[in-house]
């Protein structure tokens, strides 16, 4: 039964493998170790943002400001580096920015009771605007070598960031699986009223979710800034919607309470892999977005259809069961 509930991860992983294998049949280059590592490497920032977004969605919320929060963190990272701050301090400043951006959303949603979509739509604009205000609208270039060097480290032929992100994913997965406070994310999203009734800290949990989303956005900012080597004003733009889509593909339910970090990560990997595989297949890049959209709808529809059929059968069986019991003269 447990397997039934988690099958979404299996389904998406299976689809992902099929997609890669199919691409490999057409263009064997896709199956080379280096290509595969490159696909993973390209998915890292989306993966991190998706993980943060997952906590918010688990609590039945939504955060559309994560892309802007990542962009703002990247700006702080770039500016502090160019001011001559040491790498570690600059990264800390970027992470603090992400935390703060998330905390502002959290205050709006949990204390001021602004609906999440409205609160984060507002901060989506504010954070993106702050980026331009801080930089005067120009890109941040000429970053010191130390930040770019992070991306060049390799271990066993795999970039450092891939290892680091895997470590973050493993840690998140473990904590989400075992830690008691992590259980609250699920409980609050699954049945908010019940959570309150049992004395669970409903609002602190929601607060933590939005703050985590900001923090993970900042982690992503560090990764993509190092990978690209400069900060554009459009950095991570549109990632909020990609992250939501990746969560949905990975089985994180928008109605709250369902999903795992692993699923979210596979979802993000899948969304990125679709782009990469289209390139290997020689499909022009202009098809990317349309294709990703079709995949999203397909996965979600399949899943919805299966669930609805099961629910329908269960209810029919209950009506028939009562009728049969009745016919046997069940009630005394």
């Amino acid at each position: 039964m447990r397997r039934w509930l988690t099958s979404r991860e299996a389904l998406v992983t299976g689809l992902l493998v099929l997609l890669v294998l199919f691409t490999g049949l057409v263009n064997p280059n896709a199956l080379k170790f280096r290509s595969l590592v490159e696909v993973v490497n390209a998915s890292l920032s989306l993966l991190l943002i998706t993980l943060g977004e997952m906590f918010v969605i688990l609590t039945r919320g939504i955060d559309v400001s994560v892309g802007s929060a990542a962009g703002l963190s990247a700006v702080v990272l770039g500016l502090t580096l160019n001011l001559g701050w040491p790498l570690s301090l600059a990264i800390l400043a970027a992470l603090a920015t992400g935390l703060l951006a998330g905390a502002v959303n959290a205050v709006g949603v949990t204390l001021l009771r602004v609906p999440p979509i409205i609160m984060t739509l507002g901060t989506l604009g504010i954070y993106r605007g702050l980026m331009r205000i801080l930089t005067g609208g120009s890109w941040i270039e000429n970053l010191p070598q130390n930040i770019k060097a992070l991306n060049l480290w390799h271990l066993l032929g795999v970039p450092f960031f891939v290892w680091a992100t895997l470590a973050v994913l493993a840690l998140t997965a473990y904590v989400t699986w075992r830690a008691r406070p992590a259980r609250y994310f699920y409980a609050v999203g699954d049945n908010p009223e019940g959570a309150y009734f049992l004395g669970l800290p409903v609002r602190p949990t929601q607060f933590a979710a939005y703050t985590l989303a900001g923090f993970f956005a900042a982690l992503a900012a560090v990764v993509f800034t190092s990978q690209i080597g400069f900060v554009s004003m459009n950095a991570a733009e549109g990632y909020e919607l990609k992250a939501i889509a990746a969560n949905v593909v990975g089985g994180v339910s928008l109605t709250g309470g369902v999903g795992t970090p692993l699923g979210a990560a596979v979802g993000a990997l899948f969304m990125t892999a679709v782009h990469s595989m289209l390139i290997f297949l020689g499909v022009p890049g202009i098809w990317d977005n349309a294709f990703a959209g079709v995949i999203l709808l397909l996965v979600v529809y399949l899943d919805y259809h299966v669930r609805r059929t099961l629910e329908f059968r269960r209810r029919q069986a209950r009506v028939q069961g009562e009728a049969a019991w009745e016919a046997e003269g069940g009630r005394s």
Partner: protein
Amino acid sequence: MADQGPLLELRDVWKVFSGVPVLKGVYFDLRPGEIHALLGGNGSGKSTLMKIIAGAYRLDAGEMRLLGRPVRVESPSAAQRLGIYMVPQEPHVFPHLTVRENLSLGLDLDPETFRRKLATVLDHLDFEVDLEEPAAFLSIAQQQLLEIVRGLLRDARVLIFDEPTSALTFREAEQLFDQMRRLTERGIGIVFISHRLGEVMEVAHRVSVLRDGVMVLRAPRERLTPHDLVRAMLPETAEEGEGPAELERARRGERPVLEVRNLTSEAFRDASFDLYPGEVLGIAGLVGSGRTELAEAIVGLDPHARGEVRVGGVLLPRRTPAICQRHGLVYVPEDRHAHGIFLDLPSLYTMTAGILPRLGRFLLASAKERRIGERFVDLLNIKLQGLDQIAGTLSGGNQQKVVLAKALAGEPKVVILDEPTRGIDASARRDVYRLIRRLTAQGLGVILISSELEEVVELADRVLVMYRGRIVGELEGDAISLERVTEASFGMALEAAS
């Protein structure tokens, strides 16, 4: 159990909601090891009283004592810390978490202590369940046991059961009663809220009855009969048999406008009845008896319902609200805000929402639309500044009239009214009653669902009484009386009324 001080005691408790007192100086006590049943009609204040005990509401005046000590209960979790646990009518289940996770949530125990305690509690209750299964797969009875386990894990000394049997089968209810008796052997006090007198007489040690926020009866069960309980719940001024006697109609030869045969769903079974033109058929029953679900199944809102519905002799094998409307069957739902009215739009939009095709193929004939609107404003005596007044700014009674106008605009043959006068003032209520009489005089068939039994008694020519998802009785003409309808609603068999 005897000679012990009360476990829980409430003295002179008052609760006022927006100026209206709901509890007026109530006394209630619970002894260790006792099952104390609390009875009362809809709106008598018993839910409010229980919510005060369980910490969901705060009392406005009065005192609550636990083992003789005055206590303040600020929240459900505060109540739980004091050893008071309410098993809610709808168990609080986290469907996607496992049973174990459901049970451990909100508990401050280390895993080892939790495991040991849980094992003891499950063993004591004889509750066999797969702890690693998602709670979504639990039956309702198991979900209730899960709530009991939660209470015991919190060392509850006071358990409150709010209509625990309303969703259970007969067998499951019996098992629950055994559990309750076993719990009392450990000194736990149980407050048992139920609408079913049979159950109350079976398990309770003592019975209290609330009526209109006042405790009107408290006595040991042995000294009571079911009739005493019904009498205590009835309003003092109840006048018997004042049904509209002038409606002695000769409708024997007529064809029914609505025929329902063997309609069955999760919430009710084997409903069969006819409705004749010009008749008001009341459906009485307590909350949860299946009344609303029956209405919803008739108009096709429950896709799982089985059975036959004929309107004007035509069988409707597939029913949706739209199909039913086309055949002249309209449902006016209980919750007008959720299902009946466009609150942010001009009132006229709601009134004509059902007949737009008649007002033009693409462009709407606005003059005609306004004429129809004005006709209903007159007919129903709707008080509004103009047809364009936003519906949400009307008073509750006028909103309800707008909803009725919408239902009637399509000139239906049958109207099902679910709680048509809930939350509206006396004069609007009179208007609605007058309208119902006028419509039936023109040959419309009306099904009136109401938890206000007085209303059913006053308006209906015939009454079907539902109890636990079944039509348990039919009363007609002079046989319709408040006492009889009440008794049947609470599950006391009707003596053959003819």
